[in-house]
């Protein structure tokens, strides 16, 4: 197989995809019962399922599984009493219930296997999946099994739970359902009051109708009580708060309308003047609450509020004086403790390296994608991830005092972005309320002279009919609908106010690593003496055996060669690979490892090659930029100021200047605080900043900016606290999302015009003193429904117009 055509490759792919996880098996295929597996891990999972009659797992969905990870010793901390206490949601002598977050949950097979856990461990009484939240709630007999066994079982079948410091907080999560209750109250009242007020709409002077009028009216009054005093409560509170801080927000005319409706209706039925407007009152509150409900689009599987706690482990291994390993809760780490950090584990506190080869990936903290080698005695910062082997370190600080976590003590993380931002509805509301009060005053004065008995009637009628229900609904329905459309296109926005702020942006700031570059460094250029064919073959084959990310990348770039058996292969962790085949003795790795004579310091990542102790040359890796970066920047440059704010060094400056429009500012070597300060400075100059970042190092900047968008390769994996999460595959669509937000503002303005039109019709009836309950009862729902229809159609059309090829895949 020296040369494979595209078609052949595809056939090969289909035949060689792992039965369990669906990955390409490559060259090392493991067969078992006529099924193909990519690794022993996958095969083991299949064996477990096969023994327990659970192979139905594979019938529901093709290749649903995940490769089980090595977890030896990782969950030892779960046998600690205080940790079990915090993680479980219920504990008795015999039963424990725990809810675990499992990022891999993605299909019906996952639900099926996780709800059949008792087949794998009979001491598990029950397990229930919440697909939206990606959690499984496990009930087990704590006398026969324990939390550690449950977690180990889940990990063994490829469903490793994600347990972080975030789970270690006391207090149960409280689900707020008040809006649903209020909506229920309003819907109940609205339906029944409509039903009761129907006979009076026709004013039939029938004997029995006259007789029972008071009964019907008092029933309506009773039903309106919970609506006014419970369901509408938020509007009164918000109006009061607004008035207190001298802001005429939209809730002021609403609260005014509601109180006038209720008081006038009550007076009418007490003095038997008329039937009141209880139907309109209930309808108004109901529609307003529907709007509020619709605007609340929540993505249960996403969290927009993450801080370092979501990344940090709960416990870490501590070595005591007698060199015994104990797991210790991260908050309990004290200065001077000796800690053991395994491969792929996060360093939880600042400390000093005692022994072991440290190769730390600080991409969380600094955005720098290259790993940093540390020698014994060097300082290690919290947030780094150890990437080669086991190290021992001594803690210098506690968790909260560490360098990374101190970023979170900055005030921006306690600031509510919605404060100090006047949304479009409230901007209009100010003028609306003043105009409304003027009209009411003029009309009342007029009637005082013409027919003073009608004056009070007209005054209240104006306030009732002009109650800005339709205006208040425009924004929730437009933004609510847009939130859903964005969600389908994998742009997950936290709430409606974010869309509004996005429309007002004038500066766009990008992080570099992980944001405009993809995580894989997939471009490498060779520089040095030409390699012979056999050398190339040995190189490719030795890379195949290595699991180092750079080897993996280089392996996929190099052209295919015959598979040869290496005579000797040795991987020196943190340094490189040594391979021997016939006469060729090859060394691949760092400059010092291969013996590069002139190891000049270059900024880019390099892999050096030597053959039979003769230095050959080096592969230099370049960042690979996301598809469409250049196009996106060119689209954006017309309307926005563009900045690249990178934590990385200047190694990529030349590439970036070639790729991006000339006016893009490039700023390198930015620490997390520098990024935050940079944005703060520009905001003080009046800029509205959109920050786009990916890592924890951008957390401060994302929080400080007007809108912070986190780019995520896999939305189930964790991204820092932000206002919106954008799937990396949709990065090039960013311009369209901003434009759609701007269009949404236009739609809202148009629907304001539409609702004003209804208000003018209503005001005509009110001012002339002929407002009948039936007119109000028709006009109110009609205006609300037409606004809902208009905004829905309009938002759908803007999103469709700009993307003819939107795929609505769930």
């Amino acid at each position: 197989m020296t040369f494979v055509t595209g078609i052949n490759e595809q056939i090969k792919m289909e035949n060689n995809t792992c039965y369990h996880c669906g990955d390409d098996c490559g060259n090392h295929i493991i067969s078992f019962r006529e099924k193909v597996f990519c690794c022993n891990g996958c095969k083991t999972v299949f064996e477990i399922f096969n023994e327990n009659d659970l192979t139905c797992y594979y019938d529901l969905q093709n290749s649903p599984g995940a490769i089980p990870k090595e977890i030896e010793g990782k969950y030892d901390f779960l046998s600690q009493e205080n940790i079990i206490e915090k993680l479980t949601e219920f504990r008795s002598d015999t039963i424990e219930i725990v809810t675990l977050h499992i990022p891999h949950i993605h299909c019906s097979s996952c639900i099926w296997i996780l709800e059949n856990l008792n087949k794998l461990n009979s001491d598990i009484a029950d397990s229930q999946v919440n697909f939206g939240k990606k959690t499984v709630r496990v009930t087990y007999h704590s006398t026969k099994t324990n939390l550690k066994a449950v977690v180990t079982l889940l990990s063994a079948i490829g469903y490793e739970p994600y347990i972080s410091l975030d789970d270690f907080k006391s207090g149960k999560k409280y689900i707020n359902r008040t809006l649903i209750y209020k909506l229920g109250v309003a819907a109940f009242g609205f339906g029944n009051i409509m039903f009761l007020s129907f006979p009076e709409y026709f004013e039939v002077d029938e004997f029995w109708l006259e007789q029972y009028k008071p009964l019907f009216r008092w029933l309506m009054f009773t039903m309106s009580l919970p609506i006014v005093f419970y369901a509408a409560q938020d509007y009164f509170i918000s109006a009061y708060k607004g008035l207190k801080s001298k802001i005429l927000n939209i809730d002021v005319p609403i609260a005014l309308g509601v109180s006038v409706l209720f008081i006038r209706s009550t007076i009418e039925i007490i003095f038997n003047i008329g039937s009141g407007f209880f139907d309109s009152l209930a309808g108004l509150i109901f529609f307003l609450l529907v709007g509020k409900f619709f605007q609340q689009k929540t993505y249960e599987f996403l969290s927009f509020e993450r801080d370092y706690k979501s990344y940090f482990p709960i416990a870490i291994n501590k070595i005591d004086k007698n060199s015994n390993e104990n797991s210790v809760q991260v908050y309990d780490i004290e200065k001077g403790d000796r800690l053991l950090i395994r491969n792929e584990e996060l360093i939880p506190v600042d400390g000093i390296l005692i022994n072991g080869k440290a190769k730390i990936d600080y991409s969380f903290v600094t955005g720098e994608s290259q790993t940093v080698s540390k020698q014994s005695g060097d300082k290690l910062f919290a947030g780094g991830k150890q990437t080669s082997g086991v190290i021992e370190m001594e803690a210098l600080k506690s968790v909260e005092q560490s360098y990374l976590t101190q970023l979170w003590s900055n005030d921006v993380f306690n600031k509510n972005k919605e404060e100090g931002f006047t949304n479009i509805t409230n901007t209009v509301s100010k003028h609306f309320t003043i105009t409304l009060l003027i009209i009411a005053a003029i009309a009342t004065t007029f009637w005082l002279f013409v027919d003073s008995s009608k004056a009070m009637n007209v005054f209240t009628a104006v306030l009732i009919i002009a109650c800005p229900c339709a205006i208040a609904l425009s924004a929730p329905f437009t933004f609510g609908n847009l939130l859903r459309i964005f969600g389908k296109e994998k742009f997950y926005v936290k709430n409606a106010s974010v869309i509004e702020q996005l429309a007002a942006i004038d500066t766009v700031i990008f992080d570099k690593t992980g944001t405009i570059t993809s995580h894989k460094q997939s471009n490498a250029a060779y520089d040095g003496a030409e390699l012979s064919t056999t050398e190339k073959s040995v190189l490719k084959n030795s890379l195949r055996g290595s699991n180092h990310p750079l080897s993996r990348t280089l392996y996929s770039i190099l052209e295919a060669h015959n598979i040869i058996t290496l005579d000797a292969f040795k991987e020196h962790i943190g340094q490189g690979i040594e391979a021997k085949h016939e006469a060729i003795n090859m060394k691949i790795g760092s400059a010092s490892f291969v013996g590069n004579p002139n190891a000049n310091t270059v900024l880019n990542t390099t892999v050096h090659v030597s053959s039979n102790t003769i230095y050959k040359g080096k592969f230099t890796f370049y960042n690979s930029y996301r598809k469409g970066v250049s196009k996106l920047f060119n689209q954006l440059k017309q309307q926005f100021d563009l900045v690249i704010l990178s934590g990385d060094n200047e190694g990529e400056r030349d590439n970036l200047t070639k790729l991006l429009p000339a006016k893009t500012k490039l700023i390198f070597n930015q620490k997390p605080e520098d990024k935050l300060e940079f944005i703060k400075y520009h905001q003080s100059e009046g800029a509205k900043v959109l920050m786009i970042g990916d890592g924890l190092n951008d957390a401060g900047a994302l929080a400080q900016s007007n809108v912070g968008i986190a780019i995520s390769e896999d939305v189930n994996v964790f991204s820092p606290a932000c206002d919106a999460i954008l799937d990396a595959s949709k990065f090039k669509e960013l311009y369209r999302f901003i434009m759609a937000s701007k269009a949404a503002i236009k739609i809202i303005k148009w629907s304001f015009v539409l609702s004003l039109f209804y208000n003018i019709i209503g005001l005509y009836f009110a001012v002339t003193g002929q407002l009948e309950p039936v007119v109000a009862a028709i006009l109110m729902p009609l205006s609300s429904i037409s606004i809902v229809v208009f905004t829905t159609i309009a938002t759908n059309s803007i999103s469709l117009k700009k993307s003819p090829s939107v795929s609505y895949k769930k």
Partner: protein
Amino acid sequence: MSVIYILLSVSVVVGVTFFILFIMVVRSGQYDDDYTPSVRMLFEDELVKEQTDTSKQTKTD
């Protein structure tokens, strides 16, 4: 004529009953997860089928 009282009270009682049911159901958390149950209800049969299938398979193996 007093049939109207009966009708009214019936309609109100029916309305209130459903309203209380709604509140109870929301409170119990039934609406918190609106996706998983739709998948779960399709499982029961498959499990039975699979059990017989695999037992046959293991015999022939």
